């Protein structure tokens, strides 16, 4: 199931189980338990310090994926708000006969209220079922990361990880096939200050033998304007690359010269220092 986090943008069950483990059904039966869904080796360990029961271990190096000692974990949820990646959840399968709860980090205003009926969404943001808000924890120490506890039918608890944000737009986003009819690339402006197009830069490479950003600049003025090529330098490099097949490390950037911020004659000359010719 799933293509994994670098394709789907959220981890598959296999990735989670491999990287962080998964509580046994026996453990789920005992009450709430934390589940980390942090499957990549990234340098981060606040969860480790946040757990009052010392149930979370990252250790050294800090790029280790977090491991939850499910026997020590009390399901208190402090780690949920402490995780910078918003990737820890608390699952309580003992909430009721038919429902389980998921406690998830939530940073969108407005916050829901207990009792609200909300749309419960999966890791991929798909609607799964209706959820009922059980609790909203947002003490100061959470630093604006509210922990929302939502009840959903038990069969959805492995999938549901959040609720639809209350300010979400109503309209659907549609991507429709289209035949492009825009300007051809030769007419696209590259240097905004001097209004030099990609076509002119290509000509400077092909006909005028420009091979570096400076050489192009001297030939067609790209980069000679107010911003001194700070915006277009990279774009010119790209065109030289496309035209000559050179590698980017073979294409020298233009020479930087003072002033690196535009300065007026008055500002540069300074407050009468040395006089102004009337000494």
């Amino acid at each position, binding site marked *: 199931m799933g293509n994994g986090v670098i394709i789907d943008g*959220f981890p598959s069950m296999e990735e989670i189980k491999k990287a962080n483990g998964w509580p046994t059904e026996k453990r789920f039966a005992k009450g709430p338990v934390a589940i980390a869904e942090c499957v990549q080796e990234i340098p981060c360990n606040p969860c480790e310090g946040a757990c009052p029961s010392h149930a979370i271990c990252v250790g050294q190096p800090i790029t280790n994926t977090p491991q939850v000692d499910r026997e020590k974990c009390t399901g208190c949820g402090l780690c949920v708000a402490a995780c910078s*990646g918003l990737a820890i959840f608390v699952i309580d399968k003992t909430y009721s006969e038919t429902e389980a709860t998921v406690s998830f980090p939530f940073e969108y205003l407005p916050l829901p209220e207990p009792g609200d009926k909300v749309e419960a969404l999966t890791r991929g943001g798909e609607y799964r079922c209706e959820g009922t808000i059980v609790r909203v924890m947002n003490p100061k120490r959470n630093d604006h990361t509210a922990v929302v506890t939502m009840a959903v039918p038990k069969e959805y608890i492995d999938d549901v990880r959040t609720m639809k944000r209350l300010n979400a737009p109503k309209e659907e*986003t549609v*991507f429709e096939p289209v035949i492009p009819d825009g300007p051809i690339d030769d007419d696209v402006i590259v240097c905004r200050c001097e209004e030099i197009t990609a076509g002119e830069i290509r000509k400077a490479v092909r006909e005028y033998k420009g091979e570096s950003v400076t050489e192009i600049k001297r030939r067609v003025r790209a980069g000679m304007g107010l911003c001194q090529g700070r915006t277009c330098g990279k774009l010119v490099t790209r065109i030289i690359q496309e035209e000559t097949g050179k590698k980017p490390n073979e294409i020298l950037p233009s020479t930087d010269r003072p002033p690196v*911020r535009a300065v007026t004659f008055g500002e540069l000359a300074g407050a009468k220092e040395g006089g102004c010719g009337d000494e």
Partner: protein
Amino acid sequence: MKKEVVIIGGGPAGLAAAIEAAKCGAQVLLIDENKRPGGQLFKQIHKFFGSKAHNAGIRGIDIGRQLLKETEECGVEVWLDSAVIGLFADKKVAVLRNGTTVTVEAEKILICTGGAENPLRFPGWTLPGVMGAGAAQTMINVNRVLPGKRVLMVGSGNVGVIVAYQLLQAGANVVGIVEGMPKIGAYGVHAAKLRRAGVPFFLGHTIAEAKGTEKVEKAVIAKFENGQIVKGTELETEVDVICIAVGLRPLSELAQMAGVQHDFIPELGGWMPLHDGDMETNVPGIYVAGDTAGVEEANTAMDEGRLAGVSIAHTLGYLKDEETVQKKNEIKDRLNALRQGPFGERRLNAKQRVIEKGEAV
């Protein structure tokens, strides 16, 4: 005017360096062109990663506040609204300040002017509404202005994905994230926040065109293979903002001007200044740190700043050899920790190359 240490750029690297050097007793002048220091920290409303020593779990904006407080406490002189316009021979720093240009002669200079967002060329990229992700982030988190209601994000690296999330928090709708590579660039946990919110990723796609007369009205995306748009795969949707998050490059104009050797290091953003293990460049007394010394993230920037601060304090005689070694080792251990794992490894190797080349210069 003479100063012992001039630090150019008051972002995370500059602040951390200033504190470190000043605590040891060095006379430090920190120059920033903005109205308040902090660099990009003040628009980072998300909680930082890393370990406790890196302020992990604390939002960037609060780390910024903390650093500012320490800067004041340890007596760093701070010039705000002051733009360095050039570095000249004999470590002269020309600063535009209060409407006039003043020249400061420094014994040591640290350049930490950060990075600049890369542009992307496509038909319509000059239309109002096409903007860098960083610019959009400043609008929502600093100026509290929503740049638009329907946003297409181009680039799935950490910057694109974090800004997309913050746009959602600010009330915008992110219609999708386009990524030219066949996989997501950002940390999975960042991507997962967007997927839970229903935002689709279009992998192996690119922006083909921004349409509109006065401003962006529609975006056309298309499949992207071998550096080319696949004709016939174009899809169009209505948007009013297109954010570009296709990486950053080190801002090192001042270093280049000072004669610092540069090299092309693709993993760290392209052309960048070479430096040694203590962040010093081939020009004696000129140091670099943070994104200027290769684009990484704020935690590494702060630690690189501290490393430069310690090295500077040591060479100025404010720090004994043993203390210096101990401090440097602590910082280097933390930097190593940040450069582990599949995301950090490339940067770790690239950085080692930078240092090897920098020490060979």
